[in-house]
Protein backbone atom coordinates (compact mmCIF):
# COMPACT_ATOMS: atom_id res chain seq x y z
CA UNK A 1 0.00 0.00 0.00
CA UNK A 2 1.45 3.37 -0.96
CA UNK A 3 2.46 5.37 2.05
CA UNK A 4 0.04 8.21 1.51
CA UNK A 5 -2.87 6.92 -0.47
CA UNK A 6 -5.27 9.67 0.37
CA UNK A 7 -2.89 12.55 0.51
CA UNK A 8 -1.70 11.80 -2.99
CA UNK A 9 -5.20 11.37 -4.30
CA UNK A 10 -4.37 7.97 -5.72
CA UNK A 11 -6.67 5.32 -4.50
CA UNK A 12 -6.54 2.23 -6.66
CA UNK A 13 -10.14 1.29 -5.95
CA UNK A 14 -11.40 4.45 -7.55
CA UNK A 15 -9.61 4.33 -10.86
CA UNK A 16 -11.94 1.98 -12.78
CA UNK A 17 -14.89 3.95 -14.15
CA UNK A 18 -13.07 6.67 -16.00
CA UNK A 19 -10.10 4.47 -16.90
CA UNK A 20 -12.36 1.96 -18.60
CA UNK A 21 -14.10 4.73 -20.49
CA UNK A 22 -10.77 6.22 -21.53
CA UNK A 23 -9.18 2.97 -22.65
CA UNK A 24 -12.39 1.80 -24.31
CA UNK A 25 -12.84 5.00 -26.28
CA UNK A 26 -9.15 5.12 -27.13
CA UNK A 27 -9.26 1.60 -28.55
CA UNK A 28 -12.51 2.22 -30.38
CA UNK A 29 -11.21 5.31 -32.13
CA UNK A 30 -7.82 3.75 -32.84
CA UNK A 31 -9.61 1.06 -34.76
CA UNK A 32 -12.48 2.94 -36.38
CA UNK A 33 -11.23 6.50 -36.73
CA UNK A 34 -8.57 6.67 -39.36
CA UNK A 35 -5.87 9.11 -38.35
CA UNK A 36 -6.91 9.29 -34.70
CA UNK A 37 -3.68 7.76 -33.47
CA UNK A 38 -1.38 10.07 -35.46
CA UNK A 39 1.00 12.22 -33.44
CA UNK A 40 -0.29 15.58 -34.69
CA UNK A 41 -3.82 14.57 -33.85
CA UNK A 42 -2.91 13.51 -30.34
CA UNK A 43 -1.10 16.82 -29.78
CA UNK A 44 -4.28 18.40 -31.01
CA UNK A 45 -6.32 16.50 -28.43
CA UNK A 46 -3.95 17.81 -25.78
CA UNK A 47 -4.25 21.40 -26.89
CA UNK A 48 -8.02 21.18 -27.15
CA UNK A 49 -8.25 19.67 -23.70
CA UNK A 50 -6.05 22.33 -22.10
CA UNK A 51 -8.68 25.03 -21.68
CA UNK A 52 -11.23 22.45 -20.60
CA UNK A 53 -8.91 21.20 -17.86
CA UNK A 54 -8.40 24.72 -16.61
CA UNK A 55 -12.16 25.13 -16.20
CA UNK A 56 -12.72 21.59 -14.90
CA UNK A 57 -10.19 21.80 -12.05
CA UNK A 58 -12.02 24.42 -9.98
CA UNK A 59 -15.32 22.85 -11.08
CA UNK A 60 -14.16 19.70 -9.27
CA UNK A 61 -13.83 21.62 -6.02
CA UNK A 62 -17.18 23.32 -6.58
CA UNK A 63 -18.95 20.02 -7.17
CA UNK A 64 -17.21 18.49 -4.13
CA UNK A 65 -18.74 21.31 -2.12
CA UNK A 66 -22.18 20.16 -3.34
CA UNK A 67 -22.33 22.99 -5.84
CA UNK A 68 -22.29 23.63 -9.55
CA UNK A 69 -21.11 26.51 -11.69
CA UNK A 70 -23.21 26.95 -14.81
CA UNK A 71 -21.68 30.39 -15.37
CA UNK A 72 -18.14 29.16 -16.06
CA UNK A 73 -18.41 29.32 -19.86
CA UNK A 74 -20.16 32.69 -19.93
CA UNK A 75 -17.70 34.19 -17.45
CA UNK A 76 -14.85 32.86 -19.56
CA UNK A 77 -16.43 34.58 -22.55
CA UNK A 78 -16.81 37.86 -20.68
CA UNK A 79 -13.23 37.68 -19.41
CA UNK A 80 -12.05 37.05 -22.97
CA UNK A 81 -13.99 40.05 -24.20
CA UNK A 82 -12.48 42.18 -21.45
CA UNK A 83 -9.01 40.94 -22.30
CA UNK A 84 -9.41 41.62 -26.00
CA UNK A 85 -11.00 45.03 -25.53
CA UNK A 86 -8.12 46.02 -23.27
CA UNK A 87 -5.60 44.81 -25.83
CA UNK A 88 -7.38 46.69 -28.59
CA UNK A 89 -7.19 49.81 -26.45
CA UNK A 90 -3.45 49.29 -26.36
CA UNK A 91 -3.04 47.93 -22.87
CA UNK A 92 0.00 45.72 -22.38
CA UNK A 93 -0.77 41.99 -22.20
CA UNK A 94 -0.10 41.58 -18.44
CA UNK A 95 -2.46 44.44 -17.62
CA UNK A 96 -5.16 43.05 -19.89
CA UNK A 97 -4.65 39.62 -18.38
CA UNK A 98 -5.01 40.99 -14.86
CA UNK A 99 -8.25 42.68 -15.91
CA UNK A 100 -9.57 39.37 -17.22
CA UNK A 101 -8.66 37.66 -13.95
CA UNK A 102 -10.35 40.45 -11.99
CA UNK A 103 -13.58 40.11 -13.99
CA UNK A 104 -13.53 36.34 -13.55
CA UNK A 105 -12.93 36.39 -9.83
CA UNK A 106 -15.55 39.09 -9.30
CA UNK A 107 -18.13 36.82 -10.86
CA UNK A 108 -16.77 33.93 -8.81
CA UNK A 109 -17.15 35.96 -5.63
CA UNK A 110 -20.72 36.88 -6.58
CA UNK A 111 -21.51 33.22 -7.18
CA UNK A 112 -19.97 32.31 -3.84
CA UNK A 113 -21.94 34.95 -1.97
CA UNK A 114 -25.19 33.93 -3.65
CA UNK A 115 -24.66 30.28 -2.79
CA UNK A 116 -22.97 30.39 0.62
CA UNK A 117 -24.52 33.49 2.15
CA UNK A 118 -27.84 34.04 0.34
CA UNK A 119 -28.52 30.27 0.28
CA UNK A 120 -29.72 30.22 -3.31
CA UNK A 121 -29.43 26.74 -4.83
CA UNK A 122 -26.17 26.77 -6.82
CA UNK A 123 -27.65 25.75 -10.16
CA UNK A 124 -30.10 28.63 -10.09
CA UNK A 125 -27.63 31.19 -8.74
CA UNK A 126 -25.03 30.36 -11.38
CA UNK A 127 -27.67 30.16 -14.10
CA UNK A 128 -28.53 33.75 -13.20
CA UNK A 129 -24.91 34.92 -13.27
CA UNK A 130 -24.50 33.03 -16.52
CA UNK A 131 -27.20 35.24 -18.01
CA UNK A 132 -25.62 38.37 -16.59
CA UNK A 133 -22.13 37.50 -17.84
CA UNK A 134 -23.37 36.44 -21.25
CA UNK A 135 -25.49 39.59 -21.54
CA UNK A 136 -22.58 41.83 -20.59
CA UNK A 137 -20.23 40.10 -23.03
CA UNK A 138 -22.66 40.35 -25.91
CA UNK A 139 -23.70 43.89 -25.09
CA UNK A 140 -20.13 45.13 -24.74
CA UNK A 141 -19.23 43.78 -28.16
CA UNK A 142 -22.56 44.14 -29.87
CA UNK A 143 -22.34 40.41 -30.42
CA UNK A 144 -19.32 40.70 -32.68
CA UNK A 145 -15.81 39.37 -32.33
CA UNK A 146 -13.24 41.75 -30.96
CA UNK A 147 -10.44 41.79 -33.51
CA UNK A 148 -7.16 43.64 -33.66
CA UNK A 149 -5.74 42.34 -30.43
CA UNK A 150 -2.22 42.48 -31.80
CA UNK A 151 0.15 39.61 -32.24
CA UNK A 152 1.68 39.15 -28.79
CA UNK A 153 -0.99 36.86 -27.41
CA UNK A 154 -1.53 34.75 -30.55
CA UNK A 155 2.22 34.35 -30.83
CA UNK A 156 2.45 33.30 -27.20
CA UNK A 157 -0.31 30.78 -27.74
CA UNK A 158 1.26 29.41 -30.91
CA UNK A 159 4.65 29.09 -29.23
CA UNK A 160 6.08 25.73 -28.25
CA UNK A 161 8.20 25.11 -25.20
CA UNK A 162 10.23 21.94 -24.96
CA UNK A 163 8.14 20.33 -27.64
CA UNK A 164 4.70 21.01 -26.19
CA UNK A 165 2.34 23.87 -27.00
CA UNK A 166 1.96 26.74 -24.57
CA UNK A 167 -1.61 25.70 -23.72
CA UNK A 168 -0.51 22.24 -22.67
CA UNK A 169 2.11 23.68 -20.35
CA UNK A 170 -0.40 26.07 -18.90
CA UNK A 171 -2.80 23.21 -18.22
CA UNK A 172 -0.14 20.98 -16.69
CA UNK A 173 1.07 23.75 -14.42
CA UNK A 174 -2.49 24.57 -13.37
CA UNK A 175 -3.10 20.95 -12.63
CA UNK A 176 0.02 20.81 -10.46
CA UNK A 177 -1.07 23.90 -8.55
CA UNK A 178 -4.54 22.48 -7.94
CA UNK A 179 -3.18 19.12 -6.93
CA UNK A 180 -1.00 20.76 -4.31
CA UNK A 181 -3.85 23.02 -3.27
CA UNK A 182 -6.32 20.19 -2.76
CA UNK A 183 -4.04 17.56 -1.28
CA UNK A 184 -1.31 19.57 0.41
CA UNK A 185 -2.88 22.63 1.99
CA UNK A 186 -5.32 23.34 4.80
CA UNK A 187 -7.71 24.84 2.30
CA UNK A 188 -7.77 21.53 0.43
CA UNK A 189 -8.75 19.62 3.55
CA UNK A 190 -11.52 22.13 4.20
CA UNK A 191 -12.86 21.64 0.67
CA UNK A 192 -13.26 17.94 1.45
CA UNK A 193 -15.05 18.94 4.64
CA UNK A 194 -17.41 21.39 2.90
CA UNK A 195 -19.24 18.61 1.14
CA UNK A 196 -18.30 15.81 3.53
CA UNK A 197 -19.27 17.22 6.90
CA UNK A 198 -19.73 20.96 7.19
CA UNK A 199 -20.48 20.56 10.87
CA UNK A 200 -16.92 19.30 11.40
CA UNK A 201 -15.59 22.66 10.17
CA UNK A 202 -17.92 24.53 12.50
CA UNK A 203 -17.03 22.31 15.47
CA UNK A 204 -13.36 22.91 14.73
CA UNK A 205 -14.08 26.63 15.10
CA UNK A 206 -13.26 27.37 11.45
CA UNK A 207 -16.58 28.42 9.98
CA UNK A 208 -17.50 27.20 6.53
CA UNK A 209 -18.70 30.18 4.50
CA UNK A 210 -15.38 31.76 3.65
CA UNK A 211 -14.04 28.50 2.20
CA UNK A 212 -17.27 27.95 0.34
CA UNK A 213 -16.99 31.41 -1.24
CA UNK A 214 -13.32 30.92 -1.99
CA UNK A 215 -14.09 27.77 -3.97
CA UNK A 216 -16.33 29.78 -6.30
CA UNK A 217 -13.78 32.59 -6.51
CA UNK A 218 -11.27 30.02 -7.75
CA UNK A 219 -13.79 29.01 -10.41
CA UNK A 220 -14.09 32.59 -11.63
CA UNK A 221 -10.34 33.19 -11.48
CA UNK A 222 -9.62 30.15 -13.61
CA UNK A 223 -12.28 31.20 -16.11
CA UNK A 224 -10.24 34.40 -16.42
CA UNK A 225 -7.14 32.35 -17.02
CA UNK A 226 -8.90 30.14 -19.56
CA UNK A 227 -9.90 33.32 -21.40
CA UNK A 228 -6.23 34.05 -22.04
CA UNK A 229 -5.79 30.75 -23.84
CA UNK A 230 -9.06 30.90 -25.74
CA UNK A 231 -8.40 34.45 -26.95
CA UNK A 232 -4.90 33.42 -27.99
CA UNK A 233 -6.23 30.44 -29.87
CA UNK A 234 -8.82 32.45 -31.77
CA UNK A 235 -6.65 35.57 -32.13
CA UNK A 236 -9.78 37.47 -31.18
CA UNK A 237 -12.24 37.86 -28.36
CA UNK A 238 -15.59 36.30 -29.02
CA UNK A 239 -18.42 36.86 -26.53
CA UNK A 240 -20.14 33.50 -26.99
CA UNK A 241 -17.24 31.24 -27.96
CA UNK A 242 -17.13 29.55 -24.56
CA UNK A 243 -20.87 29.11 -24.08
CA UNK A 244 -21.48 25.51 -23.17
CA UNK A 245 -17.93 24.87 -22.04
CA UNK A 246 -19.24 24.54 -18.48
CA UNK A 247 -21.10 21.46 -19.61
CA UNK A 248 -17.95 19.78 -20.93
CA UNK A 249 -16.24 20.67 -17.67
CA UNK A 250 -19.06 19.32 -15.50
CA UNK A 251 -19.14 16.19 -17.66
CA UNK A 252 -15.39 15.67 -17.27
CA UNK A 253 -15.62 16.08 -13.50
CA UNK A 254 -18.50 13.62 -13.15
CA UNK A 255 -17.01 11.10 -15.55
CA UNK A 256 -13.80 11.44 -13.53
CA UNK A 257 -15.57 10.15 -10.43
CA UNK A 258 -16.29 13.29 -8.42
CA UNK A 259 -19.78 13.28 -6.93
CA UNK A 260 -22.19 15.79 -5.46
CA UNK A 261 -22.36 13.90 -2.17
CA UNK A 262 -20.08 13.56 0.84
CA UNK A 263 -17.22 15.63 -0.54
CA UNK A 264 -16.20 12.79 -2.77
CA UNK A 265 -13.75 14.35 -5.18
CA UNK A 266 -10.79 13.10 -7.14
CA UNK A 267 -8.57 15.51 -9.02
CA UNK A 268 -6.62 12.97 -11.11
CA UNK A 269 -10.00 11.62 -12.16
CA UNK A 270 -10.93 15.06 -13.46
CA UNK A 271 -7.76 15.12 -15.56
CA UNK A 272 -8.65 11.70 -16.96
CA UNK A 273 -12.22 12.85 -17.45
CA UNK A 274 -11.03 15.86 -19.44
CA UNK A 275 -8.93 13.62 -21.65
CA UNK A 276 -11.89 11.25 -22.06
CA UNK A 277 -14.14 14.08 -23.16
CA UNK A 278 -11.36 15.37 -25.42
CA UNK A 279 -10.87 11.97 -27.03
CA UNK A 280 -14.58 11.47 -27.48
CA UNK A 281 -14.97 14.80 -29.24
CA UNK A 282 -11.83 14.44 -31.30
CA UNK A 283 -12.50 10.83 -32.27
CA UNK A 284 -16.04 11.64 -33.38
CA UNK A 285 -14.63 14.60 -35.24
CA UNK A 286 -12.13 12.43 -37.06
CA UNK A 287 -15.00 10.09 -37.93
CA UNK A 288 -16.79 13.14 -39.34
CA UNK A 289 -19.61 12.98 -36.82
CA UNK A 290 -21.16 16.40 -36.50
CA UNK A 291 -20.13 18.52 -33.54
CA UNK A 292 -23.72 18.59 -32.33
CA UNK A 293 -23.85 14.83 -31.95
CA UNK A 294 -20.57 15.11 -30.06
CA UNK A 295 -22.39 17.28 -27.53
CA UNK A 296 -25.21 14.75 -27.28
CA UNK A 297 -22.72 11.93 -26.80
CA UNK A 298 -21.15 13.76 -23.88
CA UNK A 299 -24.59 14.06 -22.32
CA UNK A 300 -25.03 10.32 -22.74
CA UNK A 301 -21.58 9.73 -21.22
CA UNK A 302 -22.50 11.72 -18.09
CA UNK A 303 -25.80 9.98 -17.58
CA UNK A 304 -24.15 6.61 -18.22
CA UNK A 305 -21.54 7.37 -15.55
CA UNK A 306 -24.25 8.23 -13.04
CA UNK A 307 -26.29 5.21 -14.13
CA UNK A 308 -23.35 2.91 -13.41
CA UNK A 309 -23.10 4.51 -9.95
CA UNK A 310 -26.76 3.97 -9.29
CA UNK A 311 -26.59 0.32 -10.36
CA UNK A 312 -23.52 -0.30 -8.19
CA UNK A 313 -25.22 1.27 -5.23
CA UNK A 314 -28.26 -0.91 -5.57
CA UNK A 315 -26.22 -4.05 -5.43
Amino acid at each position, binding site marked *: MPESAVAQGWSPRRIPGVAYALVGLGMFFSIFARGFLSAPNLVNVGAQSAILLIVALPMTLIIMAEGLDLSAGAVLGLSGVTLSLALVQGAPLPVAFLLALAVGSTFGAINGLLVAVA*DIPPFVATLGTM*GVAEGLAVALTDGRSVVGIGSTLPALYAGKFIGAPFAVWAAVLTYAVFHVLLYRTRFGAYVFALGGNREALVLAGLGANRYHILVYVLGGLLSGFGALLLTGRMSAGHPTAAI*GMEFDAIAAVIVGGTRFERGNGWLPGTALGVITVGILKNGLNVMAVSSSLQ*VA*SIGVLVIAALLVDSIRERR
Partner: protein
Amino acid sequence: MKSARSFHIPPIVYRMISVALIAIALAASTDAFIRSENILNVLRQASLTFLIASGLTLVVLTAGLDLSVGAVVGLSACLTGAAVKATGSIPLGIAVGLACGVVIGIANGLMVTSLKLPPFIATYGMLWIVYGINYWYMAGDTIYGFSDEFKSIGNGYALGVPIPVYLMIAFLILGTLFTRNTTYGHEIYAIGANAEAARLSGIPVRARLVLVYTLSGAMAGLAGVVYLARLGSAEAGIGDPLLLPVIAAVLIGGTSLFGGSGSLCGTLIGALILTLVLNGMNLLTVNAHWHPLVYGGVVLIAAGLDAAARKWSDG
Protein backbone atom coordinates in the same frame (compact mmCIF):
# COMPACT_ATOMS: atom_id res chain seq x y z
CA MET B 1 -51.19 33.72 17.40
CA LYS B 2 -50.47 37.20 16.17
CA SER B 3 -49.61 36.24 12.61
CA ALA B 4 -52.98 34.62 12.06
CA ARG B 5 -54.90 37.68 13.04
CA SER B 6 -52.91 40.28 11.16
CA PHE B 7 -54.46 41.17 7.83
CA HIS B 8 -52.65 39.33 5.11
CA ILE B 9 -52.44 40.49 1.52
CA PRO B 10 -51.65 37.58 -0.79
CA PRO B 11 -48.30 38.13 -2.52
CA ILE B 12 -49.98 37.67 -5.87
CA VAL B 13 -51.73 41.01 -5.38
CA TYR B 14 -48.38 42.76 -5.13
CA ARG B 15 -47.35 41.12 -8.37
CA MET B 16 -50.50 42.27 -10.11
CA ILE B 17 -49.84 45.77 -8.85
CA SER B 18 -46.31 45.63 -10.20
CA VAL B 19 -47.63 44.59 -13.60
CA ALA B 20 -49.92 47.60 -13.56
CA LEU B 21 -47.13 49.91 -12.43
CA ILE B 22 -44.75 48.75 -15.12
CA ALA B 23 -47.48 49.15 -17.72
CA ILE B 24 -48.28 52.68 -16.51
CA ALA B 25 -44.62 53.61 -16.48
CA LEU B 26 -44.23 52.36 -20.03
CA ALA B 27 -47.35 54.11 -21.20
CA ALA B 28 -46.05 57.32 -19.71
CA SER B 29 -42.58 57.03 -21.20
CA THR B 30 -43.45 56.04 -24.74
CA ASP B 31 -46.46 56.57 -26.92
CA ALA B 32 -45.83 53.37 -28.77
CA PHE B 33 -46.72 51.25 -25.77
CA ILE B 34 -50.46 51.77 -25.60
CA ARG B 35 -51.04 51.08 -29.27
CA SER B 36 -53.31 48.05 -29.35
CA GLU B 37 -50.97 46.39 -31.81
CA ASN B 38 -48.15 46.60 -29.30
CA ILE B 39 -50.25 45.39 -26.41
CA LEU B 40 -51.44 42.41 -28.40
CA ASN B 41 -47.85 41.72 -29.25
CA VAL B 42 -46.89 41.77 -25.60
CA LEU B 43 -49.69 39.35 -24.83
CA ARG B 44 -48.65 37.06 -27.65
CA GLN B 45 -45.06 37.07 -26.47
CA ALA B 46 -46.10 36.48 -22.86
CA SER B 47 -48.31 33.59 -23.90
CA LEU B 48 -45.40 31.76 -25.50
CA THR B 49 -43.33 32.20 -22.36
CA PHE B 50 -46.29 31.12 -20.26
CA LEU B 51 -46.89 27.91 -22.23
CA ILE B 52 -43.37 26.68 -21.46
CA ALA B 53 -43.32 28.11 -17.95
CA SER B 54 -46.61 26.49 -16.96
CA GLY B 55 -45.17 22.98 -17.24
CA LEU B 56 -41.99 24.06 -15.53
CA THR B 57 -44.05 25.54 -12.71
CA LEU B 58 -45.44 22.08 -11.92
CA VAL B 59 -41.91 20.70 -11.69
CA VAL B 60 -40.72 23.55 -9.49
CA LEU B 61 -43.75 23.02 -7.23
CA THR B 62 -42.31 19.57 -6.45
CA ALA B 63 -38.97 21.22 -5.55
CA GLY B 64 -37.49 19.96 -8.81
CA LEU B 65 -36.21 21.71 -11.90
CA ASP B 66 -36.36 21.05 -15.62
CA LEU B 67 -33.43 22.65 -17.42
CA SER B 68 -34.25 20.86 -20.66
CA VAL B 69 -37.38 22.86 -21.57
CA GLY B 70 -35.62 25.27 -23.95
CA ALA B 71 -33.95 22.45 -25.83
CA VAL B 72 -37.25 20.56 -26.02
CA VAL B 73 -38.94 23.60 -27.59
CA GLY B 74 -36.20 23.62 -30.21
CA LEU B 75 -36.39 19.93 -31.05
CA SER B 76 -40.19 19.94 -31.05
CA ALA B 77 -40.27 22.93 -33.41
CA CYS B 78 -37.86 21.31 -35.83
CA LEU B 79 -39.53 17.89 -35.81
CA THR B 80 -42.94 19.49 -36.18
CA GLY B 81 -41.61 21.60 -39.02
CA ALA B 82 -40.27 18.54 -40.80
CA ALA B 83 -43.49 16.61 -40.28
CA VAL B 84 -45.75 19.40 -41.48
CA LYS B 85 -43.50 20.09 -44.41
CA ALA B 86 -43.43 16.42 -45.42
CA THR B 87 -47.10 15.60 -44.99
CA GLY B 88 -48.89 18.91 -44.90
CA SER B 89 -50.92 17.60 -41.97
CA ILE B 90 -51.22 20.04 -39.12
CA PRO B 91 -52.66 17.57 -36.57
CA LEU B 92 -49.78 15.22 -37.33
CA GLY B 93 -47.34 18.07 -36.78
CA ILE B 94 -48.86 18.93 -33.42
CA ALA B 95 -48.83 15.27 -32.45
CA VAL B 96 -45.14 14.99 -33.35
CA GLY B 97 -44.26 18.06 -31.28
CA LEU B 98 -46.24 16.84 -28.29
CA ALA B 99 -44.86 13.32 -28.55
CA CYS B 100 -41.32 14.66 -28.64
CA GLY B 101 -41.94 16.57 -25.42
CA VAL B 102 -43.70 13.68 -23.72
CA VAL B 103 -40.92 11.20 -24.49
CA ILE B 104 -38.22 13.53 -23.17
CA GLY B 105 -40.34 14.36 -20.15
CA ILE B 106 -40.81 10.70 -19.27
CA ALA B 107 -37.08 10.13 -19.63
CA ASN B 108 -36.43 13.05 -17.27
CA GLY B 109 -38.96 11.73 -14.80
CA LEU B 110 -37.45 8.25 -14.82
CA MET B 111 -33.95 9.62 -14.31
CA VAL B 112 -35.13 11.60 -11.31
CA THR B 113 -37.20 8.81 -9.73
CA SER B 114 -35.66 5.49 -10.73
CA LEU B 115 -32.03 6.54 -10.95
CA LYS B 116 -32.47 9.07 -8.14
CA LEU B 117 -30.38 11.64 -9.99
CA PRO B 118 -30.63 15.21 -8.74
CA PRO B 119 -33.20 16.89 -11.06
CA PHE B 120 -30.86 19.69 -12.11
CA ILE B 121 -28.15 17.31 -13.28
CA ALA B 122 -30.52 14.84 -14.98
CA THR B 123 -32.31 17.56 -16.93
CA TYR B 124 -29.05 19.40 -17.58
CA GLY B 125 -27.60 16.29 -19.20
CA MET B 126 -30.86 15.91 -21.11
CA LEU B 127 -30.62 19.54 -22.26
CA TRP B 128 -27.36 18.85 -24.05
CA ILE B 129 -28.48 15.51 -25.45
CA VAL B 130 -31.59 17.07 -26.96
CA TYR B 131 -29.59 20.06 -28.14
CA GLY B 132 -27.05 17.82 -29.86
CA ILE B 133 -29.67 15.64 -31.52
CA ASN B 134 -31.50 18.69 -32.79
CA TYR B 135 -28.45 20.38 -34.28
CA TRP B 136 -27.41 17.11 -35.84
CA TYR B 137 -30.87 16.53 -37.26
CA MET B 138 -31.12 20.00 -38.73
CA ALA B 139 -27.49 20.05 -39.89
CA GLY B 140 -27.62 23.81 -40.26
CA ASP B 141 -30.77 23.80 -42.38
CA THR B 142 -33.78 26.00 -41.97
CA ILE B 143 -37.25 24.66 -42.63
CA TYR B 144 -39.63 27.32 -43.91
CA GLY B 145 -42.55 27.91 -46.25
CA PHE B 146 -45.46 26.70 -44.13
CA SER B 147 -49.07 27.15 -45.05
CA ASP B 148 -50.84 30.21 -43.68
CA GLU B 149 -53.22 27.88 -41.94
CA PHE B 150 -50.37 26.42 -39.91
CA LYS B 151 -48.76 29.78 -39.26
CA SER B 152 -52.03 31.11 -37.94
CA ILE B 153 -51.52 28.96 -34.81
CA GLY B 154 -48.83 31.43 -33.83
CA ASN B 155 -49.64 34.51 -35.88
CA GLY B 156 -53.34 34.47 -36.37
CA TYR B 157 -56.09 36.36 -34.68
CA ALA B 158 -59.59 35.40 -33.62
CA LEU B 159 -61.94 38.23 -32.72
CA GLY B 160 -58.95 40.52 -32.82
CA VAL B 161 -56.96 38.58 -30.24
CA PRO B 162 -53.89 36.48 -31.14
CA ILE B 163 -54.49 32.72 -31.15
CA PRO B 164 -51.63 32.00 -28.68
CA VAL B 165 -53.41 34.20 -26.15
CA TYR B 166 -56.40 31.85 -26.34
CA LEU B 167 -54.03 28.96 -25.78
CA MET B 168 -52.54 30.75 -22.81
CA ILE B 169 -55.96 31.33 -21.30
CA ALA B 170 -57.02 27.76 -21.99
CA PHE B 171 -53.94 26.32 -20.35
CA LEU B 172 -54.13 28.75 -17.48
CA ILE B 173 -57.65 27.53 -16.76
CA LEU B 174 -56.83 23.86 -17.34
CA GLY B 175 -53.65 24.09 -15.32
CA THR B 176 -55.28 25.95 -12.48
CA LEU B 177 -58.08 23.41 -12.37
CA PHE B 178 -55.49 20.65 -12.35
CA THR B 179 -53.42 22.12 -9.54
CA ARG B 180 -56.28 23.42 -7.39
CA ASN B 181 -59.24 21.20 -8.14
CA THR B 182 -57.86 17.74 -8.56
CA THR B 183 -56.29 15.55 -5.93
CA TYR B 184 -53.24 15.24 -8.20
CA GLY B 185 -52.56 18.92 -7.77
CA HIS B 186 -52.83 18.69 -4.01
CA GLU B 187 -50.46 15.75 -4.03
CA ILE B 188 -47.96 17.72 -6.09
CA TYR B 189 -47.95 20.56 -3.56
CA ALA B 190 -47.60 18.06 -0.73
CA ILE B 191 -44.58 16.45 -2.39
CA GLY B 192 -42.91 19.80 -2.88
CA ALA B 193 -43.54 20.89 0.69
CA ASN B 194 -42.05 17.72 2.17
CA ALA B 195 -41.39 14.72 -0.07
CA GLU B 196 -40.70 12.30 2.76
CA ALA B 197 -43.84 13.29 4.65
CA ALA B 198 -45.80 12.91 1.39
CA ARG B 199 -44.42 9.43 0.87
CA LEU B 200 -45.25 8.49 4.45
CA SER B 201 -48.76 9.86 3.90
CA GLY B 202 -49.33 7.29 1.20
CA ILE B 203 -48.85 9.50 -1.86
CA PRO B 204 -47.29 7.65 -4.80
CA VAL B 205 -44.42 10.14 -5.04
CA ARG B 206 -42.55 8.55 -7.92
CA ALA B 207 -45.60 8.32 -10.15
CA ARG B 208 -46.47 11.96 -9.49
CA LEU B 209 -42.93 13.10 -10.23
CA VAL B 210 -42.91 11.23 -13.52
CA LEU B 211 -46.25 12.90 -14.26
CA VAL B 212 -44.98 16.45 -13.67
CA TYR B 213 -41.82 15.96 -15.72
CA THR B 214 -43.96 14.49 -18.49
CA LEU B 215 -46.33 17.44 -18.37
CA SER B 216 -43.38 19.82 -18.41
CA GLY B 217 -42.01 18.08 -21.48
CA ALA B 218 -45.46 18.06 -23.13
CA MET B 219 -45.98 21.79 -22.58
CA ALA B 220 -42.53 22.54 -23.97
CA GLY B 221 -43.36 20.31 -26.94
CA LEU B 222 -46.61 22.14 -27.55
CA ALA B 223 -44.88 25.50 -27.15
CA GLY B 224 -42.44 24.36 -29.82
CA VAL B 225 -45.32 23.98 -32.27
CA VAL B 226 -46.70 27.44 -31.47
CA TYR B 227 -43.26 28.96 -31.59
CA LEU B 228 -42.62 27.46 -34.99
CA ALA B 229 -45.95 28.73 -36.28
CA ARG B 230 -45.15 32.18 -34.93
CA LEU B 231 -41.72 32.40 -36.52
CA GLY B 232 -42.69 30.62 -39.71
CA SER B 233 -39.36 28.88 -39.95
CA ALA B 234 -37.49 26.29 -37.93
CA GLU B 235 -33.81 26.14 -37.22
CA ALA B 236 -31.92 24.23 -34.59
CA GLY B 237 -31.16 27.18 -32.33
CA ILE B 238 -34.77 28.25 -31.96
CA GLY B 239 -35.20 27.17 -28.33
CA ASP B 240 -31.73 27.95 -26.97
CA PRO B 241 -32.37 31.40 -25.53
CA LEU B 242 -35.64 30.38 -23.86
CA LEU B 243 -34.49 28.60 -20.71
CA LEU B 244 -33.46 31.66 -18.76
CA PRO B 245 -36.57 33.80 -19.38
CA VAL B 246 -38.82 30.85 -18.60
CA ILE B 247 -37.13 30.18 -15.27
CA ALA B 248 -37.22 33.91 -14.59
CA ALA B 249 -40.98 33.98 -15.25
CA VAL B 250 -41.62 31.08 -12.87
CA LEU B 251 -39.54 32.64 -10.11
CA ILE B 252 -40.90 36.17 -10.32
CA GLY B 253 -44.30 34.56 -10.44
CA GLY B 254 -43.65 33.57 -6.86
CA THR B 255 -43.27 29.81 -7.22
CA SER B 256 -40.67 28.80 -4.67
CA LEU B 257 -37.57 26.93 -5.77
CA PHE B 258 -37.81 25.00 -2.53
CA GLY B 259 -41.16 23.57 -3.55
CA GLY B 260 -44.71 23.46 -2.24
CA SER B 261 -45.82 26.99 -2.93
CA GLY B 262 -46.69 28.97 -6.01
CA SER B 263 -49.33 28.95 -8.70
CA LEU B 264 -49.91 29.12 -12.42
CA CYS B 265 -51.59 32.51 -12.04
CA GLY B 266 -48.34 33.69 -10.50
CA THR B 267 -46.41 32.32 -13.43
CA LEU B 268 -48.73 34.12 -15.84
CA ILE B 269 -48.04 37.37 -14.03
CA GLY B 270 -44.33 36.53 -14.06
CA ALA B 271 -44.46 36.04 -17.80
CA LEU B 272 -46.29 39.35 -18.19
CA ILE B 273 -43.80 41.27 -16.05
CA LEU B 274 -40.89 39.86 -17.97
CA THR B 275 -42.44 40.55 -21.35
CA LEU B 276 -43.42 44.08 -20.36
CA VAL B 277 -39.89 44.86 -19.24
CA LEU B 278 -38.47 43.52 -22.49
CA ASN B 279 -41.11 45.31 -24.53
CA GLY B 280 -40.28 48.52 -22.78
CA MET B 281 -36.61 48.02 -23.49
CA ASN B 282 -37.40 47.42 -27.14
CA LEU B 283 -39.60 50.47 -27.36
CA LEU B 284 -36.90 52.53 -25.72
CA THR B 285 -34.56 51.03 -28.30
CA VAL B 286 -32.32 49.19 -25.89
CA ASN B 287 -30.29 46.67 -27.78
CA ALA B 288 -31.58 43.07 -27.61
CA HIS B 289 -28.09 42.05 -26.60
CA TRP B 290 -28.93 43.13 -23.07
CA HIS B 291 -31.74 40.59 -22.75
CA PRO B 292 -29.74 37.74 -21.18
CA LEU B 293 -28.45 40.17 -18.60
CA VAL B 294 -31.97 41.20 -17.70
CA TYR B 295 -33.11 37.57 -17.48
CA GLY B 296 -30.12 36.65 -15.36
CA GLY B 297 -30.61 39.62 -13.08
CA VAL B 298 -34.29 38.83 -12.68
CA VAL B 299 -33.52 35.19 -11.84
CA LEU B 300 -31.00 36.26 -9.21
CA ILE B 301 -33.28 38.82 -7.59
CA ALA B 302 -36.28 36.49 -7.53
CA ALA B 303 -34.25 33.54 -6.23
CA GLY B 304 -32.63 35.76 -3.62
CA LEU B 305 -36.01 36.95 -2.36
CA ASP B 306 -37.27 33.37 -2.33
CA ALA B 307 -34.27 32.16 -0.29
CA ALA B 308 -34.57 35.11 2.07
CA ALA B 309 -38.28 34.46 2.61
CA ARG B 310 -37.51 30.88 3.44
CA LYS B 311 -34.84 31.83 5.98
CA TRP B 312 -37.24 34.33 7.48
CA SER B 313 -40.04 31.82 7.94
CA ASP B 314 -37.68 29.18 9.34
CA GLY B 315 -36.65 31.31 12.18
